């Protein structure tokens, strides 16, 4: 019998209408990095919430060092030495780093804070693990990577020795990811045990010792990383073979479809401009990707291109036509199809049926209305065609409320609508966010097929793998500027990371010898 520090045995957790965890077993050894792999909705977060005391399981038990324990709330978990870095950080923006670290366990004398000893402890920990932070900086002023360090220090300050990381790399640059991996290894060497939740196979292969795979709420297996491969893990996660490579044929570049010159967009959040004097073009038959860490002006740039936001300077030319001042509908009719970043907020009217959503960009065209009356039959047969052609699955076909559909099928519906509409340019913003591998594969294929059909594609993505796989040309945005233009074939993830973090600027040719 091996020495397990935490055992979650036969955990079953139900929610009305769904069994989120169905008889799941997870065993964590002391001093190991254990990955928890699964697609969205596989039950990873539920399982961790059970361990952290946020949910009570219907069945099963949790053991620490072989003894059954009852975890009723996060305080119990903390007492057992379990700490968690949540995917969305639980920090108070207007407090300092130090204040956030001691939050909930403030050292005090008769109710007066004793910050001095806390500061010493934090500085000692930060030195010991190379987690450099300024204890007096405000959270809102520091970078996301820095915020994550604060979360890690929070666990260390509480002397947790079982550390849960929930999708910790989603917000980091490749360099920051490497640093995090090193820190995790350091923790493991010290005898701390780490649970690492992710759906990124490369990271698991790089850092984990063992991996537990979940699929649709069920336990699939527990494997040692040294005995497995990326392909096998993905097969366990998805239940079938997955094709990672996207096949693209070589294309002759066509005319310039979108020409953006010196545009500037002011920010709604801060006083600076969100997009600063940006120029670029997208040509027919290519996929141009706007890469960058979230919040570097990509959202605002797309809003400016599609007309959702006004620009304060510059010009936008689509197929030779100046659309700088045109409204959203004119732009849409001139050939822009837009797959929005937030499909629930912008892409769909969730309370409308599927068929009504499929005509959202076209309901006013003569094909679908006469004298202001909607042609119900025309809408229905159009919807039927799109549903069939793009394999949009739903409970009741065209009359299904979109709210009840799965994320992947909602995205397929948007994709169908935007691709079927007349277009010269597709702007796809994080089109695969939150989707499972199967849906991602499908959406990638469709975008490539648009490119192969001689359309222009502007892809905005935060996923490096997606950027590298799909694009012909990569533009990197950093703090509202385009800091690099790279040839997708000639660059590496590492180089891309340097641009994304602002450490490097210029085009591939200029920096031939660097990176």
């Amino acid at each position, binding site marked *: 019998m091996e020495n397990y520090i935490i055992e979650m045995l036969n955990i079953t957790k139900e929610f*009305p209408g769904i069994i989120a965890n169905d008889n799941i077993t997870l065993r964590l050894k002391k001093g190991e990095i254990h990955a928890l792999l699964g697609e969205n909705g596989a039950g990873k977060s539920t399982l961790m919430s059970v361990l952290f005391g946020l949910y009570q399981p219907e069945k099963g038990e949790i053991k620490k060092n072989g003894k059954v324990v009852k975890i009723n709330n996060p305080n119990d978990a903390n007492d057992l030495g379990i700490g968690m870095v949540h995917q969305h950080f639980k920090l108070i923006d207007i407090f300092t780093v130090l204040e956030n670290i001691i939050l909930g366990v403030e050292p005090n004398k008769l109710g007066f804070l004793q910050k001095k000893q806390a500061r010493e402890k934090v500085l000692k920990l930060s030195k010991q693990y190379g987690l450099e932070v300024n204890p007096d900086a405000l959270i809102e002023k520091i970078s996301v990577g820095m915020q994550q360090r604060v979360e890690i220090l929070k666990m260390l300050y509480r002397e947790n020795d079982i550390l849960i990381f929930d999708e910790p790399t989603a917000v980091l640059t490749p360099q920051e990811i490497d640093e995090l991996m090193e820190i995790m290894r350091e923790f493991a060497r010290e005898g701390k045990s780490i649970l690492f939740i992710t759906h990124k196979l490369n990271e698991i292969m790089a850092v984990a010792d063992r991996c537990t795979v979940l699929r649709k709420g*069920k336990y*699939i297996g527990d494997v040692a990383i040294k005995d497995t491969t990326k392909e096998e893990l993905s097969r*366990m996660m998805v*239940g079938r073979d997955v094709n990672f490579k996207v096949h693209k044929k070589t294309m002759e570049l066509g005319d310039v479809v979108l020409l953006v010159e010196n545009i500037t967009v002011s920010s709604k959040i801060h006083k600076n401009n969100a997009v600063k004097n940006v120029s670029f073009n997208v040509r027919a038959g290519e996929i141009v990707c706007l890469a960058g860490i979230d919040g570097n002006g990509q959202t605002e740039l797309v809003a400016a291109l599609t*007309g*959702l936001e006004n620009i304060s300077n510059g010009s936008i030319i689509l197929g030779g036509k100046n659309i700088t001042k045109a409204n959203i509908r004119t732009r849409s009719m001139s050939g822009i199809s837009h797959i929005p970043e937030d499909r629930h907020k912008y892409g769909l*009217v969730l309370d409308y049926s599927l068929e009504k959503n499929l005509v959202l960009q076209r*309901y006013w065209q003569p094909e679908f209305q006469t004298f202001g009356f*909607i042609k119900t039959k025309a809408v229905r047969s159009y919807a039927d065609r799109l549903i069939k052609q793009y394999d949009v699955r739903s409970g009741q076909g065209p009359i299904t409320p979109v709210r009840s559909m799965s994320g992947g099928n909602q995205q397929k519906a948007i994709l169908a609508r935007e691709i079927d509409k007349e277009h010269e340019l597709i702007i796809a913003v994080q089109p695969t966010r939150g989707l499972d591998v199967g849906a991602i594969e499908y959406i990638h294929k469709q975008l490539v097929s648009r490119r192969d059909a001689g359309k222009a594609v502007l892809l905005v993505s935060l996923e490096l793998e997606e950027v590298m796989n799909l694009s012909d040309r990569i533009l990197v945005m950093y703090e509202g500027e385009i800091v690099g233009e790279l040839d997708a074939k000639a660059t590496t993830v590492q180089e891309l990371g340097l641009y994304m973090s602002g450490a490097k600027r210029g085009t591939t040719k200029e920096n031939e010898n660097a990176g």
Partner: protein
Amino acid sequence: MQDKTVSSSKAFDNLKKVGKSKGFSAFTAALLAILLGLIFGYLIMRIASPANSFLGFQMLLIGGFKRIGDVFYFATPILMTGLAVGFAFKMGLFNIGASGQYTMGMFFALYVGFMWKLPDSIHWIACILAGMVGGMLWGLIPGIFKAFLNVNEVITSIMFNYIGMYLVDMLIQGNAAMYISSKTRTAYLPASAQLPTLGIPHSSVNISIILSITLALILFIVLNKTTFGYELKATGFNKFASAYAGMNDKRNIILTMVIAGAMAGLGGAFAILAPSTIAGSSMTYEPVSVIAANGFNGIAVALLGNSNPIGIIFSAVFISHIQRGGTLASLYGYKPEIIDVVIAVIIYFSAFAMLMNSTVANLIKKRYSKKQSVKIPPADQKEGA
């Protein structure tokens, strides 16, 4: 989501289907609200006067049937203000200004009734149209503020309730042809300005109830069959998606508020132009600086009718029915205020209607899915490993 629960029982399937149908759930919600409201209403009557509570409550429930003409007569204005609130609500606008629009509509109708000399056959029609214009005007202004300056329509339309009411009172008091200062009310309207009666004895019920129901049906068609209704509801559900789809939200906001105002204005006109049961008289207005209650009742009517024009027809008739029954219940010594309390309770519960509906649905779902999930065999742990 549901693919994990093996749906074996047929009853559950049926329940699920019924629970999913939107119209049904809105209907049950309204019925539940009414039922609970009635129970509480009865308890209040019981506390107020235990001896007569049963007979009084019986009268409250069925008294309306004895005055069927009056039920429809009093339903007309609140049906119109209900439409004014409900229609705007479909776009996500809370038109609390139905009272002001109602008052303006009434004033415009009165003005044309007194001051314009027109042939008998078209005089009342002109009065109705004038009322509509008055209401439109009072809907247009908050609409413009909302569309172009993003001023919250709740604030502007509340202010416009007061502005409209004081303005109308002032204008009426300053007009010798319209106002009899010794009686502190308006003079009797000429017969040509009054609406054709439906001929039910001892009742003022008139053609306007038919017009109102027709308008409700038209609004229903507009909402469900036209591109304008499509845009309007899309904006109400999700204004970001409607902007993304390039809908002209400024135009739609103004148009919606104008239509809502027109409905409330017509309500005011219908109320004041109704024929009197006493020959030679007419309905009158007393400028006493009170905001028209019919406007606020419209909010209740719209809520109970789930903002659906068809639902609003029924909820207006129902509230009117209870009100008539309440008047008759006073024969058993109940004060009209008690009836107001009962109606208030019903409205109060209708605000909870949606909540109760979803709770009940969840309860049913939970019970059944729990029973079924037990039957699911344990997962095969070796799968894929």
